[in-house]
């Protein structure tokens, strides 16, 4: 559905950060802020909750570990026990390396998967580009038009060192 936005465009992350915090005090509701590189602090300004990725990693790692150990034991001691070099069928010390590797394997790949999923990133996805420079050297604060009073915010941002404040309207696939 079509949405209208107010954009405040910056070219310096420090000014942006200051403005963002002021805007937070003013209870302006951010739609999002687009930056060419991570600007530390913006998360707090936008009140973004801590990422849940670490939990995904832990669980998936655990699963990997269990899968690895159980597979090795089942294959070499239950399904086909065979005397290899006089070693016991369950040679746990020998199973350690593979268990570790599979733990990492599961954890890493699943976490990446989760990351892409949570941020709806996938080949061919249409990016939200308000200004072609937003991935290069421009920092863009975005509010939904109906959420804020345009004149007020535009004044606010121009006072707080924005290069310009514009309106923009576009189809959003939500």
């Amino acid at each position, binding site marked *: 559905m079509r949405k209208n936005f107010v954009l405040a465009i910056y070219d310096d992350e420090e000014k942006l950060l200051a403005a963002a915090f002021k805007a937070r005090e003013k209870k302006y509701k951010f739609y999002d802020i687009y930056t060419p590189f991570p600007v530390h602090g913006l998360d707090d300004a936008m009140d973004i909750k801590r990422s849940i990725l670490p939990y995904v990693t832990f669980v998936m790692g655990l699963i990997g570990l269990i899968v690895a150990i159980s597979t090795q034991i089942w294959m070499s001691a239950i399904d086909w026990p*065979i*005397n*290899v*070099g*006089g*070693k*016991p069928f369950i*040679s746990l010390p020998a199973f350690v390396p593979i268990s570790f590797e599979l733990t990492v394997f599961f954890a890493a790949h699943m976490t990446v998967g989760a990351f892409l999923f949570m941020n709806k990133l996938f080949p061919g996805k249409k990016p939200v580009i308000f200004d072609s420079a937003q991935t290069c050297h421009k920092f863009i604060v975005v509010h939904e038009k109906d959420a804020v009073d345009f004149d007020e915010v535009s004044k606010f941002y121009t006072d707080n060192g924005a290069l310009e404040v514009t309106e923009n309207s576009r189809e959003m696939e939500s």
Partner: protein
Amino acid sequence: MSNKDIYKTQKSEDQKDAYWQDVENKVLDPKALSNEFAEDEFDSFSVKKTRRNFLKIMGFSVTALPLTGCIKIPVRKAVPYLYKNDVVVPGVANWYATSYMGYPILAKTREGRPIKIEGNKKSIVTKGGANTQAQASVISLYDSYRYNSAMIDDKKVEWDEFDTKAKEALAAVKEAGKEIVLVTGESTSPSEIKVINEFAKKLGVTVVTYSSTSNQAILEANAQSFGKRVYADYNYEMADVILSFGADFLGTFGDDVGSSKQYVSRRDPKHKRGLSKHVQIESMMSMTGMNADKRFTRTLEEQRNFVLAIYAAVSSENVEGIKLSEDDKKLAMEIAKDLKNAGKNAVVVSDDKSSAVQILVNKINSALGAYGTTVFARDNEFVMNSNNSEFTQAISKMNEGKVGAMMFLNVNPAYDYKSSDKLVSALKKADMTMSFATAKDETSALCKFVAPNNHAFETWSDNQVNHEEFSFTQPVIQPLFGSRMASETLMSFAGISGSFHDYMKKHWDTKFYAQSKKDGEINFWNKTLHDGVVVLGGFSSELSAKNVSSSNSISKIKSMSYPKMAVQTYMKSAITDGEMANNPFLQELPDPVTKATWDNYVMVSPKYANEKSIKSGDMVTLKGKSHSVTIPAIVQPGTANNSFAVAVGYGRKVAGKVAKNLGGNAFAFDNGEEVSLKKTGEFKGLAQTQTHHSMEGRDIIRETTYSEYLKDPKAGNHKKARLVNIYPEHKKDGHQWAMAIDLSQCTGCSACIVSCSTENNVPVVGRQEVANRREMHWLRIDRYYKGDENEPEVMNMPMLCQHCENAPCENVCPVLATVHSSDGINQQIYNRCVGTRYCANNCPYKVRRFNWFNYDRGDSMAKLALNPDISQRSRGVMEKCSFCIQRIQEGKLEAKKERRPLKDGDIQVACQQSCPGDGIVFGDMNDPKSKISEFLGSERNYTVLEELNVRPRVSYLTKVRNK
């Protein structure tokens, strides 16, 4: 690739012939073969056969054989059995008692193809042993370089045409009033000799016996000492003290298998007569010398003076002017003392090429009273011993034009006669020349007529094995090529009708049956044929030593002069006189002494090599009076500083792909001839399977002396590693296979290697690949030197997969291609192997072999020798000793069929079976009464690299030397 063409057969003109070529594959297709046999069952006295079966077949075969023997009926298609015959059961081996080179053997045939040779346990001489040649003979049988029809002027002819033409030619010669000479090799076959003599009488042929490798001196000496040109038989089992002057009696001097059996029986410290004492005095390192308790490197001159000294001491006759150093004089006295103490239980053997020396040796032996206990000089009518001087005369006569025809039977003088050029020129003068060679050789190439003889396995014959034992040779396969038994050719020339089989049988009925009038002619014949051997006394009488005076021998010896550098020719235990040189198995067999393959070489002493800065592998030219060879040198510890040694049997000019132009021909050298050696500057290298010869003081081979052993049987074997397992061991119930090898019993003869290779289809890889250290033998014999490099002590150790209980190779294979069986065998699963080679790297014994390429198994012919029970390993696959798993399986099944538990000795692995020394024991270590348990319990038992805690299933018994 070098490995590709080693087996390829020479496609000479005669083989391009259309008729034979297009049916070749059909005839040679094993299936077709088996059916062919099915249709005309010829003799097959399988050891297991009952009398009924045998008679049934007999009736037919006696008449069928001459037909099948001579007429080739190519099989066009495989015909199913009309009546299932009970002789050839597909998948079940038939064993036939026959003999090879006169020695009794058993031939294992599958679907009618001989594929494996084993010794005949019934023989009192070989006692189940078989030498390298016999083991490898199956390969020669299928050698498609053999003649495949009678030839006249190098053109194929049918046999009857051949016979008429040949007879005419002979008649023509007679008319011209010229002499016909038949040159034969030495023979011990009563019937063959009879045929030859009859043939000679009929056509007035002069028979000349020639041998390139026999020691004429011994024959002459015996002729003088006993008035008969005979060889002596020895009994080393009775000998407490053995003194050998360069006689390689375990290898190429006389009957190797029999001697080894006797000799080795006395290397067992438990033997009731105790350990024999073996002193070897020689100028080159021989296989026998390696095994001596005391070995002395002495020049020929010194050796002869030793003979004088010892003769003087033993006969207490005063001999002046013995040229020996004081120490050597003392040494001679010690040896003489030992000999005298042993008295009739002592023996002196010498391979000296001077009859004067041999006469003295005879006198020493008779002075000791050895004749009758350890030495037997026997008179009998069944031997044709060589007399090369007669041959020389015949040649000169031929040069004068007096000899019109010369025929060659089992000899190849154009190659191995000293002055072969004389022979060649003489042959040009002859009107009729004929050879019986089985394959084209130097002589047959010069002959107008070629009547190819059958291979031993296609032949009827009989042999005198020793003074009392006789053996039979029976065909175990139809003639594969268009050849014909030489004796039958001679019969047809002599106009004797019937087959040689009948002839031989008649001879036996009249001659030998008369000896033992037991259970009827036919049964006597059958039994002999079935057993392969029969013991008949009374055919030979003890010769009484004439009293030849020693004085002129002594003066002869004293007057002998010696060159500064002399050459000594010798025979390699595998290649011998080169008659089997086209056999790749023998060529690739590492020489017991030098561990070199695919070559002959000049042995030089380390000292000489230092002076002349020669290193092994340098090409050198050895120049004699009339002859010179250019071959690699090898620095051989234990070679006398003033002598070189060269093996004969190489440098074949007319031979199959394998042998052709391999090495240099040394036959033209006289023994002790003056030679000069020059480096060509070229480096050829040697294809050796072992290049480091010191044990580096490591605890690998344990040994002790007899005196030590008598004090403490555990002597030299006290080291014991403290072994701990951090995890529980696997169950060890049921059969648990193990092997023990008695190092005192191993002479290093290498028969086990050939046996293993034929049994397990181990590929031949060729000279280059051996040089690349990629030989495939599953079993090798490690040979280490110790001490002074002029007179080193030599130790042999057969090394094969140790079947470790905690096998390091198994842990590291990612795909479980090598695992452990419940009966304790380290198994290699060929078709699971991906070839990471990690197992081989991690094998402390380095016994695993990798298929670096797809090794050529030869043409459709050579493939017939493959053992159908063993799969061919493709390239990229690891392989190794399997404890002959197929034999274990067979043994188990046999026992199962007979509803009885497996007995100890039911299963014999290939190497164990062929060992002439019984040094290898294999069996179930869970069976307390088994021989292996006894060996494992022995105080001398130990395992190599025990401290690694890999727990090998192959253990060794310390070597005991009688020093």
